[in-house]
């Protein structure tokens, strides 16, 4: 029975604490700075383990690439006509990886989903670095990488131009644009935090951050311009993100090969991209949460929200996947149908079924709250999902070559050589290395936005609670 003001305060507090929260509203802003800046200085030991491991892996990839460069593509054990292999598959994988960063930072930003704020920074970084990795694969794949600049449209003495009808040229353009703009987006979003770093840093770090923070003082005018710029770039980025992977899809969709010649490829690829990206975010979320002691900011509710998002996208992907099979089957084109049957029954059958299992069945485990709140489980699941998505890309590329239109040239024995595997592994090393470096050098949690979040949450929730209690009291008053 509430009748005094104190009772009312207590009641409000009680209810308020019962609700589980994305983030504690009573963190002091100084505390936020302290926690995040700490990540730039003393991460857990695991950080160094991961970093060294990635570096080693990257070195393996470099060695393989040097060997391949010297000797020729033959060392990858590709053949005629099986001319594309893991390189292209992994290239698509990394492109896809890059999408969810934009999803979180740009799309959710526009939709004012504020739970994204603690985690969008590293997602955006992930975008940038996975795009860099994808770019590397284009180089690795080329037979004469030393001539790659022929793809660029530049005026030259020979009056020659790239072939603007080729999806590969579209690729080069789209990826480069996406890379640059997402880098800009990442940087712009960081400026206020860089200023914080500058204020807390000493020595050469101070110079470094001073240079990067572009004299950010936090004046109202700066904030106003900052908001506008940030929003604009975000809006610019969203169509890019969609276009990039659609174009990668056209690489396959415009060709005649069975299993590629499918008009539903662009949305299919985009969905797959968001899918693998979200899964990757969950993995890195958990890693960072532990390595940099971000338990306060990367909280379970946020993880759960991300998981739900992933689950939704997984369902979209599954649907489009089934659409692809169905259209192939009912389209009843002999070549395509044979290729589909070959995938399900031929040499690549195990990987194909594993792909379908990991991609379409495993995500259902995320339908359960228990699983969503279980960190080890989520770590394993998210990694499994990405394995599935990587397999999907490989299953798009290789079986078509192995069992294409022309029966005489079907594969004799084609299995990726150690060189190919080495370079693929190296790419993961390269990505992790860059990512870990980033988290060490830049604040991987957006401080200023977390502060906003905390502030809004506290004000907002207290107001709602208070008003509801007042209503109750009004009801009671009317009754008496």
């Amino acid at each position, binding site marked *: 029975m509430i009748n005094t003001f104190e009772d009312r305060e207590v009641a409000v507090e009680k209810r308020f604490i019962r609700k589980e929260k994305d983030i504690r509203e009573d963190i002091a802003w100084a505390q936020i700075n302290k926690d995040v800046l700490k990540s730039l200085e003393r991460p857990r030991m695991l950080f160094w383990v991961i970093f060294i491991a990635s570096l080693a892996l990257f070195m393996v990839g470099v060695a393989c690439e040097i060997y391949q460069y010297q000797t020729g*593509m*033959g060392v990858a054990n590709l053949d*005629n006509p099986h001319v594309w292999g893991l390189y292209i598959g992994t290239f698509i994988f990394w492109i896809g990886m890059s999408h969810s960063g934009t999803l979180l930072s740009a799309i959710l930003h526009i939709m004012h989903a504020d739970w994204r704020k603690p985690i969008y920074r590293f997602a955006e970084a992930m975008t940038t670095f996975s795009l860099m990795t994808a770019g590397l694969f284009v180089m690795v794949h080329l037979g*004469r990488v030393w001539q790659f600049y022929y793809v660029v449209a530049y005026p030259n003495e020979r009056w020659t131009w790239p072939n603007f*009808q080729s999806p*590969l040229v579209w690729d080069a353009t789209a990826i480069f644009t996406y890379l640059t703009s997402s880098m800009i987006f990442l940087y712009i979003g960081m400026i206020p935090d860089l200023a914080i770093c500058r204020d807390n840093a000493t020595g050469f770090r101070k110079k470094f951050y001073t240079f990067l923070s572009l004299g950010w003082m936090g004046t109202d005018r700066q904030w106003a311009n900052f908001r506008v710029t940030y929003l604009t770039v975000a809006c610019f980025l969203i169509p890019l993100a969609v276009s990039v992977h659609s174009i990668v899809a056209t690489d396959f969709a*415009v060709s005649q090969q069975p299993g590629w010649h499918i008009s539903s490829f662009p949305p299919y690829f985009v969905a797959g991209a968001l899918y693998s990206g979200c899964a990757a975010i969950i993995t890195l979320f958990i890693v960072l949460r532990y390595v940099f002691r971000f338990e306060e900011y990367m909280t379970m509710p946020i993880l759960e929200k991300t998981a739900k998002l992933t689950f939704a996208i997984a369902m979209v992907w599954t649907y489009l996947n089934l659409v692809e099979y169905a259209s192939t089957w009912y389209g009843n084109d002999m070549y395509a149908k044979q290729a589909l049957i070959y995938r399900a029954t031929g040499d690549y059958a195990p990987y194909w079924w594993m792909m379908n299992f990991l991609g379409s069945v495993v995500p259902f485990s995320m339908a359960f709250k228990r699983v969503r709140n279980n960190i080890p489980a989520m770590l394993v699941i998210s990694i499994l999902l990405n394995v599935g998505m990587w397999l999907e890309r490989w299953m798009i590329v290789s079986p078509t*070559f192995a069992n294409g239109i022309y029966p005489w040239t079907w594969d004799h024995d084609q299995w990726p050589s150690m060189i190919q595997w080495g370079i693929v592994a190296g790419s993961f090393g390269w990505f992790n290395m860059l990512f870990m470096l980033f988290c060490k050098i830049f604040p991987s949690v957006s401080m200023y936005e977390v502060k906003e979040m905390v502030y809004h949450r506290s004000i907002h929730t207290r107001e709602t609670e208070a008003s509801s209690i007042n209503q109750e009291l009004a009801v009671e008053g009317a009754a008496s």
Partner: protein
Amino acid sequence: MSITNLLNNWSFYRNKRPYRGQYDLNRQYSEYKWAMALDLDVCTGCNACTTACYAENNLPVVGKKRFQHGQVMHWIRIERYWDEKMGEFPEKGASFLPMMCQQCEAAPCETVCPVGATSHTNDGLNSQNYHRCIGSRYCSANCPYKVRYFNFWNYPSTAWPAPLPDQLNPDVTVRTKGVMEKCSFCVQRLNEAKSRARTEYRLVKDGEVSPACVQACPTSAITFGNIVDPKSKVAMMWKNQQVDLYKDMQEKDNTVRGYRILEDLRPFPSVMYMERIRDMEA
């Protein structure tokens, strides 16, 4: 203009105007359009054409291991198929199919090359420029016949131990690692013949020039020529077999033997095959 009107125009374009080269959709061949007619009934599968091609076009001998990996470089290959419904023994013999680049009019490889290393020439050939190629291998991925061959290894340094290089044909480049290559209808011979003809104020006469495979073939199963010239043997054979370069479905009576392979994919190949014949009473 109505929708049907639009669609009609489109289908007209697709039927009558397959994509010809990168520059001009409406180009008609004025002087030359090289084409072949290949009689599968007299092809004995003896591989003379293949060896002739090795000799003429500086094809590397790749060796056993690389052959096993499917990295062989024969620009023209003889395929041997058994009949689908074969009993215990192949009583009707085997079917041999010489397969070389079909020099498609709507070549799937041309549109996808990022650097335009492969493009259509004024003679309707599908040119491959080794020095422009960067080895993205997209053309091979998109070729329905899989007649494009990629240099996976640095053959110039390995495939010709001295003094074998002395045999190499100076008119043909020796391809280095990382470039795509394919049958060229022996363009070096064609260019030489065209030049000779021009000097004499005429066009190349029928039978004046022929690719190495055609010249070697002991049974003369391959006929080569210029189908712009209606009196050339190959043009007459195409006409006689009711095969039209720009039709994808040849509606004709079943007694004529002419057909083009994988026509349904609409690449409009320049090589007409003539069906193998078997005496079913025998």
